[in-house]
């Protein structure tokens, strides 16, 4: 909690702090969001699974580097990465979103593979794209990029990799234009 986050955390100023499994709850556009500390992640997720959230719809990670607009409830300090899990309860027709703060220095969270095996590919994607590792994942390798790729493309400090749009002349045409003899 003593982490010097560059982003000021702003309390949602709810009159009665709502909690679920001991974790603060916020509402975003009518959707329930659960903010889970990393050390309680596995335990809370297992509890949610037991509560009837049987379908893990989505798991992704977000790189908040350079963002100053995030609002988090009291007691949750902002970190660079966030792992976002969207769970669905097919029986209760309910959804909940879980957000976990993951520090840049140690970007590791426990894997949910044992609870929802469907997160296998999603966690690999989060690792590939943002470099958040999942402890206990059976096969944490790159999934979308080639195996020997360097860097994690969806990180904010990774450039888009744009090639300047101009007519890319062939070497010969460029040589012709500059007046020298063709290569």
């Amino acid at each position, binding site marked *: 909690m003593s982490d010097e986050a560059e982003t000021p955390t702003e309390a949602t100023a709810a009159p009665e702090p709502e909690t679920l499994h001991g974790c603060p709850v916020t509402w975003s556009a009518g959707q329930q969001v659960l903010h889970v500390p990393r050390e309680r992640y596995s335990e809370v997720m297992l509890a949610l699974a037991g509560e009837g959230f049987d379908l893990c*719809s989505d798991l992704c990670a977000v790189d908040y580097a350079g*963002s100053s607009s*995030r609002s988090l409830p009291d007691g949750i300090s902002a970190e660079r990465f966030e792992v*976002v899990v969207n769970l669905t309860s097919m029986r209760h027709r309910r959804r909940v979103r879980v957000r976990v703060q993951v520090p840049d220095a140690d970007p590791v969270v426990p894997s949910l593979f044992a*609870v929802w095996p*469907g997160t296998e590919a999603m966690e690999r994607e989060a690792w590939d794209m943002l470099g958040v590792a999942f402890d206990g994942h059976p096969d944490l390798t790159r999934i979308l990029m080639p195996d020997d790729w360097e860097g994690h493309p969806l990180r904010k400090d990774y450039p*888009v990799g744009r090639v300047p749009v101009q007519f890319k002349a062939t070497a010969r045409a460029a040589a012709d234009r500059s007046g020298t003899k063709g290569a």
Partner: protein
Amino acid sequence: MRSRTASAETSEGRQEMAPRGATERAELLREEGAVLRLPEGPTLSPQDVAIEVAGEGETMIINMGPQHPSTHGVLRVMMELDGETVVRSKPVIGYLHTGMEKTAEDLMYIQGSTNVTRMDYLANFFNENVYSMAVEQLLGIEVPPRATWIRMLLCELNRMSSHLLFMATNGMDVGALSMMIYGWRERELVLAFFEKVTGLRMNHNFIRPGGVAADLPAGWRDDVKQICNLIEPRLDEYDELLTGQPIFQERTQGVGVLTPEQAVALSATGPILRSTGVEWDLRRDMPYQYYDQLEFDVIVGQYGDAFDRYAIRLNEIRESIKLVRQIIELVPGGDYRTQDKKVTPPPRARIDESMEALIHHFKLFTEGFRVPAGEVYVPIESPRGELGCYLVSDGSAKPFRLHIRAPSFANLQTLPVMLRGGLIADAVAIISSIDPVMGDVDR
């Protein structure tokens, strides 16, 4: 982190797969171990499950794809074979990774639907729809009813065209080549209507935050009615051609069986989940837009095999026709896009007479509109399952993070489970029955 892999140098490059000991537990966990965590699932431990496999040196690893005619694009599947039986398999994806989520962070909200529509290129309207809904929820704006109904109409027609394409390719993959011709013939009817409405056969960029790009053309009701009237009797022809045909049944029934527990555990949605008997359709179970005002049935299967998935999609076309017929009676008059001046550009005539309109127009197309900070996850039912859009805004005119929960991506995880223990010849029918769109998988 990376497990030691066994590799072999071949003329086609290095082929590698994790050694069996390293993945077997994971494979088992994925198939059975996961199920035991579910509250009512059967309790099985990995140790109880014995698979009869040949020794390490007696199996063969073959590579299917990424350039293979029946892998629906650029899917690559590595399969370990014992004779003709698939022992293990692993889908390798990423050959169509387009970096769309990165590009989305670079485009304004108003440009975003150009980007997302190219993800699932068989169900373009669904991508645009889910993206627009997410942006609108963050903006807190209401879309005029006519725009929403138009969106639903186009989405249901798109579901028909997507499933018709599945009929065509599924038929082709299992050897019914004539089905290929018929499926495309019917699909062209729908595409001609799309071209009339949006100007393009695919990648429409028509549904945009705030509404739709243009109103429906004159005479659209008759066009849609005619499409429905033409396609409906032809579906009965498909029934004769495929559903009741013994060869097709032999080829697909009992092939690629999935249990409901496995399907839920592996996050499968859409026809794959419904084929196992789980009644789950977001249109009915968590209605969005105006689906709660419409009458339709959720088609479910019983056996969870490739034939069920085919039958579900065939009957979903019928349900979509039913929906489309209801929708065309219900589309109200009014605006086709929101009249919020901060989101919708002013009409052309206003620009000539109003300085303010000109400024709005200029600002909208150079800076875009700002979306309040926040995050939202919007799911809809696409032809392939739950299509979700997780959108994070930091208050600027560009998304901070756009993540698409692609149904094909999650559904593809069921492939190793379905292939396991089956014959190599069935692999084509199984891959086809998942109906993966690689643009959706890799994004």
